């Protein structure tokens, strides 16, 4: 299945990219995708699928937009 991943803040710095479209095995979870992208597991990220916060164990579906959310700093 194909998933769009967008990167922000520290993750954008690490990946040197804003967005990418990746092929992942059916059943891959948000957390699984994070590991598959080779991102540091020590980072306390949250997950958003199609702009909804979801638990890391959430299974992705074809066409999803996945974003890893580092701790926010707005305001």
């Amino acid at each position, binding site marked *: 299945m194909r998933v769009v991943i967008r990167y922000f803040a520290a993750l954008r710095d690490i990946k040197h990219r804003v967005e990418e479209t990746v092929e992942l095995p059916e059943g891959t979870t948000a957390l699984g995708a994070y590991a598959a992208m080779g991102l540091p597991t020590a980072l306390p990220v949250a997950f958003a699928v199609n*702009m909804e*916060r979801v638990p890391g164990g959430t299974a992705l579906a074809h066409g999803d937009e996945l974003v890893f959310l*580092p701790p*926010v*700093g*707005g*305001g």
Partner: protein
Amino acid sequence: MIAVVDQAIDTRAVADAVRDRRHGAVLVFEGVARDHHDGKQVVSLFYEAYVPMALREMEAIAADTRARWAGVSVAMVHRTGPCAIGEPSVVIAVGAAHRGEAYEASRHAIDELKRRVPVWKREHYADGSAWIANKV
């Protein structure tokens, strides 16, 4: 008015968006780029946002605030990109019949914005920069 903008926020326009003949109080909160943080001298700030989700979250916070304090009006604007010291990075305006609910609703809205809206802040110092998370 709920918006994410990449230029200076027009505070007056945000305040004007909540005006209503039934309101006796208008409370405008500006979060402003300040020149220090945890003892370090800050030269400037840079904000990055996951814009469509930030807008969704801000709309949800505004709706929740209006539901909790019936009759209040809420407007919120966050800035992205570089933000000079002294410039507002966020402006929240609340209009209410009475001041008590204006203070409570405004405080609720900014606390929620800082907790859950997907915006990130990079502080620039004389000798580098760092992404700074809000205290939870």
